[in-house]
């Protein structure tokens, strides 16, 4: 069935239907959701082959990336303290429905023997679980594609001492396009030796392996659960906000001693497994009691900081790696973000995290550490509304996620000559 250019029946009265050529059918299907596509494999042998083809999977993923979800993390949910993770389409979130998330066992983590979501990549969630054995924890990872109903076994076992996971370990999940390998990176703070060790697990390998230690001190190092967003995956690299110079323990009160010039963004290329240091925007020139952060908006690395406790500023690195390309994206006054109903909340003293910027750049989804709800900020008329989902969501753990047909992420190690 290949006939370019497609010919139509000319007579308008002709009863025969149009016949779409394969390329157009492929294009139509690339817009369909995963559930429907798995059903459509039954349509015919050709369709089965088309939908399973890795090229189609890539095309579908590209389209799906324009319609992402946020994984909503519910801790200690209504059912016996289990954690839930529910992918929620951004387009739906922006419409701000007043709803309660369905209590679907499919989204519970305990049954998967896991507790947290480390990251999301190409439709796969990296989950983390552990069990305590004496003074130690045995930690493991598990990978789950909710759209495809596929999940790996537990793997990547690693030990920590009982304090390590919540204070000295940082996990990150990403994908190296060149080798087509998914990788998990673990930063381990080694206070005694004044350095941060780094281990990598390539999915498909049995073991973690060490790489060069981290060239700075990653932020934040204080008690936080492993699911909190503290690393940014972008185009084959993982990026952390860090402090250069010698190691210091940065407690909650330590910010006053930190100089703006000490901030650096460490970028780890997942292909070469080497580091790069990027300076934050030079417009960020004054310290503040509020911690800055990095995120991805519109496929660009972004840096956010408080400005004199009056505004929240977001910068965008237009060209990745080019420090001169930092441009101010938004400057939002805290007054505009203030909720009418919560005037005891001091927004200017708490940390912010931008989660998503809509396609046409008019709605910004923002999370604030002090608030239960996320903020939908309309950039055209500078109005902020709170989300109305009634569940208790940990917005600082929300990951950008897509539905994908990628069915296999464990790759046997290929030995390069």
């Amino acid at each position, binding site marked *: 069935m290949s006939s370019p250019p*497609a010919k*139509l029946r000319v007579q308008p009265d002709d009863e025969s239907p149009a016949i779409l050529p394969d390329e157009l059918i492929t294009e*139509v299907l690339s*817009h369909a959701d995963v559930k429907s596509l798995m*059903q459509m*494999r039954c349509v*015919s042998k050709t*369709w089965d082959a088309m939908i399973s083809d890795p090229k189609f999977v890539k095309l579908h993923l590209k389209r799906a990336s324009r319609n992402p979800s946020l994984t909503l993390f519910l801790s200690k949910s209504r059912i016996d303290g289990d954690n839930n993770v529910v992918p929620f389409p951004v387009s739906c979130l922006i419409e701000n429905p007043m709803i309660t998330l369905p209590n679907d066992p499919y989204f519970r983590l305990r049954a998967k023997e896991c507790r947290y979501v480390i990251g999301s990549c190409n439709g796969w969630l990296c989950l983390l679980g552990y069990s305590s054995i004496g003074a130690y924890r045995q930690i493991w990872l598990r990978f789950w594609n909710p759209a495809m109903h596929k999940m790996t076994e537990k793997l990547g076992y690693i030990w920590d001492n009982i304090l390590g996971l919540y204070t000295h370990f940082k996990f990150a999940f990403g994908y190296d396009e060149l080798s087509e390998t998914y990788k998990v990176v673990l930063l381990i703070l080694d206070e005694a030796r004044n350095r941060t060790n780094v281990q990598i697990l390539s999915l498909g390998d049995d073991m973690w392996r060490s790489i060069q230690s981290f060239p700075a001190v990653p932020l934040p190092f204080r008690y936080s659960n492993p699911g909190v967003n503290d690393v940014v995956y972008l185009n084959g690299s993982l990026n952390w906000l860090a402090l250069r110079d010698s190691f210091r323990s940065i407690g909650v009160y330590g910010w006053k001693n930190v100089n703006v010039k000490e901030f650096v963004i460490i970028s780890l290329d997942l292909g070469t497994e080497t580091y790069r240091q990027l300076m934050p925007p030079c417009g960020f020139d004054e310290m503040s009691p509020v911690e800055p952060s990095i995120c991805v908006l519109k496929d660009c690395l972004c840096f956010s900081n408080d400005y004199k406790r009056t505004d929240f500023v977001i910068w965008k690195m237009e060209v990745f790696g080019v420090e001169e390309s930092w441009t101010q994206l938004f400057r939002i006054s805290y007054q505009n973000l203030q909720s009418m109903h919560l005037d005891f909340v001091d927004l200017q003293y708490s940390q912010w995290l931008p989660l998503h910027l809509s396609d046409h750049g008019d709605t910004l989804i923002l999370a604030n550490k002090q608030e239960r709800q996320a903020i939908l900020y309309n950039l055209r008329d500078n109005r902020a509304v709170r989300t109305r989902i009634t569940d208790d969501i940990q917005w600082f753990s929300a990951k950008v996620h897509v539905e994908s047909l990628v069915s296999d992420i464990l790759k046997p190690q290929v030995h390069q000559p």
Partner: protein
Amino acid sequence: MAEEKSQASSSKMLTLKASDGVLFEVELNIAKEMKTVQAYIDDCEDIETIPIPNVLGKHLAIVIEYIKKTNEEYDAEFEKQWNMDDLQLLLLAANYLNISGLQECLCKAIAKRIENKSPEYVRKVFNIENDHSPEEEAKLRKEYKWAFEGVDKD
């Protein structure tokens, strides 16, 4: 049939001739959105009437209207007016005329209409013969049982 855009008073007009002979007078900037037509103009500068042999008059009218009015709101409502056959014919037209915005809009619309429908329904829509053996199909249905739950009635 011809509708002039209010702004361009001195814009050149072009005639497009559909497969069933229907003629459409359009402004050059509208016609240029159809990359196929643009290529035609680039090749023969003095042309005034361009034949569009693959597209019926009724569909060409819809395509021209789309080009004139397309925006987010219009696109959202656009596809609702047409039945599945027309959507496919319009997609063929958009593809032939090489109008990427319309092509994407139509692909999305068709995809939406076949989502969560049974394989039999989808086969009818695209006129496809089932060449799976009953065993093969049963195997797929079993392996992806979750996909077949809660399917829309045909």
